[in-house]
């Protein structure tokens, strides 16, 4: 998304060169394909991020095999892809500027919730310093600091999403284990009642006494 601010062009360029580029963090329920678009302002920007599949409640079936994550450049080429994972981090340089497409593909029919975070970071290089006289070498350092802090934030978001996933797994396990245990008890009691009933029937008067 281009941040357009009214005002002086020079200041705007200065801001554009220094300001933090796009950050988006959210989670999506992927039934088939779910795509998000992000605009990359400069070639060579670092696109980094992570995603975690936060499982839905599974009661009987085994774990979902995972989802595919594909990043498409504005030219239509696949820049980055991760197949069949339940969560991963990624980082790569944007080969060109433009609108990039980040897609999640779900091969199976069960919907899965994916929590993801995408960050596009730009650090002004020496070339930009030479071009624009408003830029100060200190701005480069500030940009680097900001990127470093951003990576910490991204890591936190990843940890939080994984924590949510673990929480879901734990709660589902707890429910399942308690459910199965209580079910087991009921089956035991039912089996013993059936046994008693059957033995009583074997010895009942209606059946011939000598048969047993």
């Amino acid at each position, binding site marked *: 998304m281009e941040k357009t601010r009214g005002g002086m062009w020079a200041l705007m360029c200065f801001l554009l060169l220094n300001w933090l580029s796009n950050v988006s963090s959210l989670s*999506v329920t992927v039934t088939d394909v779910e795509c998000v678009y992000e605009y990359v302002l400069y070639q060579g920007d670092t696109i980094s991020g992570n995603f975690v599949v936060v499982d839905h409640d599974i009661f009987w079936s085994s774990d979902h095999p995972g989802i595919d994550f594909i990043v498409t450049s504005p030219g239509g080429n696949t820049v980055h892809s991760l197949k069949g994972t339940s969560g991963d981090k990624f980082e790569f340089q944007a080969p060109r500027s433009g609108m990039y497409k980040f897609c999640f593909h779900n091969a199976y029919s069960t919907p899965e919730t994916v929590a993801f975070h995408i960050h596009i970071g730009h650090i002004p290089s020496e070339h930009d310093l030479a071009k624009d006289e408003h830029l*100060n070498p200190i701005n480069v350092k500030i940009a680097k600091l900001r990127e470093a802090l951003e990576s910490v934030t991204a890591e936190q978001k990843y940890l939080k999403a994984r924590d949510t996933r673990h929480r879901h797994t734990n709660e589902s396990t707890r429910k399942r284990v308690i459910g199965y245990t209580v079910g087991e008890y009921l089956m035991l009691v039912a089996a013993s009642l059936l046994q008693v009933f059957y033995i009583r029937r074997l010895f009942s008067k209606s059946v011939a006494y000598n048969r047993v």
Partner: protein
Amino acid sequence: MILRSVFALVLLVGILSPASESLRFELQSGQTKCIAEDIKSNSMTVGKYHVVKPNEDHPLPDSHKLTVKVTSSHGNSFHSAEKVESGQFAFTAAEQGDYIACFWAVEHTPQITVTVDFDWRTGFHTKDWTNVAKKGQVHSMELELKNLFDTVQSIHEEMLYLREREEEMQELNKATTSKMFWLSFLSLFLCLSVAGIQFWHLKSFFEKKKLI
């Protein structure tokens, strides 16, 4: 909220404040997409949305307009707009929870795709929009450094929050383990008692039948 389309996709933002997201997504006619964000209590939140014009010169036709509703998880509505092209909302979250912003495109016979650009910021990021440095370099640098400082503070808060959640999960696991421990004793007791009752019942039955 009435989710009209089969492809109703729920977008959940699993990240607490500070969080900022600027993203672009596509809506088919008649489809609904919802974005929810988990917001901490007493934090400011600001959101801006607009439809990306397919044709820059002409005004947006009616078929491309949106209906927007922002509600809390308890059902209180904070913002609603019918058939608009763009808009914004701001409110202070009274309590922590999921706040949902839902968009739907009006039903139209040839299915058209509406591209929506949505920017939702919570926590300290809301300050970004109101403060645009207008005076010289030093002020904007100061602003950036302030921004960095706020980021660090939010990282600290997030770490504390993550630690709390981890502790909660540990408590949950401990509770599950102790429950399983007691349940195993119960199962032993149940097994023995069922066997004992069976034995006692059959013995009295056979004695009644004069077989023993």
